[in-house]
């Protein structure tokens, strides 16, 4: 993995051949050549490297389903509530009608900006909510809000931890003020997890901005970010336009946010499952709904004591009756004291 790869441009040559029409599974060239070091990868290599450039460590975007697959490491997982789809409450039209945008985005392979799944990460069962930036900029509309709420409720029902991966430009403007309210809805969802004392792990992927960063993405118990991810409430363009500031290149990047104390760690995607599994292992309980071992132990002792206490009055009476003819040595001892 850490070995330096030799870049061979076979792919490029092959693609130029006119006979080869684009195979359906194939990614566009820009998703396979690294923008930082120009290394070029075959689709299979990219997939195996978790879409991280093996030469320079650049993190490419990952679709939500592929992410869940990465978390499950080839294990089985079940998608939750895939039937939820966006509706158009405002009959919103900007440069094109909102339903057309949704339909076009659905053709891209995902059906919403967030998918939920139940899976095991290294043997730790959990619910995952993963955002997909390729679907309308990962924007948060009613479906994203509803899925986060349901995911939290499922965690509470089953006593499971929640793992969230965010990648979003913010609230979905085409759903107007209803999209804004989803921020509050997701905070309500995280409050349910707070009350149920269940852990939340949040990974901020590139980019996490706007209403998503200003709601549930900020509320993880443990907050990681991917290297180079932009994390901000207002994006750099908006800030430069509004305040005429010139921002440094590292503005809002994961590493900057770590230095400014806004996140817990910058985690390489190749270490992510290990790190999440470690947190889950630290917090592991026999089953989510069971009280921790210390409590079980204490409760067991208490029940036993209660059982004993039931028989105590006549038992002690009997003991007292037996103890009545005291031996002289005992009396001596008492006198000494």
């Amino acid at each position, binding site marked *: 993995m850490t070995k330096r790869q030799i870049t061979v441009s076979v792919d490029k040559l092959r693609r130029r051949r006119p006979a080869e029409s684009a195979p359906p599974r194939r990614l566009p060239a820009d998703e396979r050549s690294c923008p930082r070091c120009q290394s070029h990868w075959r689709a299979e290599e990219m997939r195996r490297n978790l879409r991280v450039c093996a030469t320079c460590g650049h993190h490419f975007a990952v679709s939500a389903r592929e992410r869940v697959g990465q978390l499950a490491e080839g294990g089985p997982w079940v998608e939750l509530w895939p039937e*939820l789809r966006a509706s158009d409450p405002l009959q919103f039209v900007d440069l094109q009608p909102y339903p057309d945008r949704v339909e076009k985005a659905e053709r891209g392979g995902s059906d919403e900006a967030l998918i939920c799944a139940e899976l095991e990460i290294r043997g730790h069962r959990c619910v995952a909510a993963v955002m997909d930036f390729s679907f309308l900029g990962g924007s948060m509309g009613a479906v994203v809000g509803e899925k986060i709420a349901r995911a939290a409720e499922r965690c509470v029902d089953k006593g499971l931890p929640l793992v969230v991966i965010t990648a979003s430009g913010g609230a979905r403007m085409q759903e107007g003020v209803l999209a804004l*309210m989803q921020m*509050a809805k997701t905070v309500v969802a995280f409050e349910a997890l707070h009350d149920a004392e269940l852990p939340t792990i949040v990974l901020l992927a590139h980019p996490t901005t706007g209403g998503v960063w200003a709601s549930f993405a900020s509320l993880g118990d443990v907050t990681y970010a991917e290297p180079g991810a932009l994390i901000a409430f207002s994006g750099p363009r908006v800030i430069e336009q509004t305040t005429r500031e010139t921002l440094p290149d590292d503005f809002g990047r994961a590493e900057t946010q770590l230095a400014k104390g806004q996140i817990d760690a910058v985690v390489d995607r190749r270490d992510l499952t290990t790190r999440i599994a470690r947190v889950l292992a630290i917090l592991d309980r026999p089953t989510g709904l069971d009280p921790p071992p210390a409590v079980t132990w204490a409760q067991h002792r208490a029940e036993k004591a209660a059982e004993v206490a039931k028989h105590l009055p006549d038992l002690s009476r009997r003991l007292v009756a037996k103890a009545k003819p005291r031996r002289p040595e005992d009396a001596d001892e008492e006198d000494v004291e």
Partner: protein
Amino acid sequence: MSVAARRGGRFVRRLAHRLTGQPETSAAIWETIGLARHQDRPYPLDYIGRLWPEFEELHGDRLYGDDPAIVAGIGRGVGGPVAVIGHQKGRDTAERTYRNFGMPGPEGYRKGMRVMALAEKLDLPLITLIDTPGAFPGSGAEERGQGGAIARSMQTTLRLRVPVIAVVIGEGSSGGALALGVADRVMMLENSTYSVISPEGGAAILWRDAGKARDAAAAFQPTAANCYRWGIADAVVPEPPGGAHRDHDEAARLLGGYITRALRDLRAQPPAERRRLRRERYRRIGAYREVAAGDPAAIAAGRLDATTNGSPGTP
């Protein structure tokens, strides 16, 4: 209509018509936005002076600084002793600069959270007055955790046991407004607006042209009447004829009546129940479709069958 009719009073019939009549034209929406931003429109301190004559303003977030874009404090007047938090814009250039045009940074929200904690401790109902173009976009605000401050402000209001009333008095745009907008009762003044983003911001992003603000406003339909229809606002508070800027005293009087009434209703609820209902209120918001699991169109598109059974690895 029910809310307006229940209130009674001089301006209610006109308001009822506005709430039940035809959707507003884009010209009417743009006019409302102008009124919501009118420079003579009463700001929180104008309402506070009239509704809570005894008012002690509190300053500073005890962490970094004091943000003049948020005013917060405790007062006595309408509803008895209360805690008040609001976005404060400025009326002239000097004050506007000082108040940062009503755009708070994280210090402002943290000052708000401090006062929320105080309200909880002293059992004071919390009233928030919303009037902001949005949270301040600046590198300093980002470094000090603008996003987290907004999220935690909402979280703090959701944890309060005291009654919370939010009133949109001018423009309520983006998360900067919602940070103070999570409440048991959300009211909007007749000519106020509530939107996911300011029309200019929306135009710059969706139309790629900030000059298309009118189009954006027409698309967002951010008026009080619409928010009432969508269930975002529980009540629309009438304003004096021509708008609140024409008569601050009358505007404050009308708002005071609504606050008194809402507080009376809320005080009748047990605190834990009130908090549960507050959460329930936001849990319900949102419109979406449900495609049947066996929807032939979805399956034909290859989206459902591959995922519902759980596919190992990548699809």
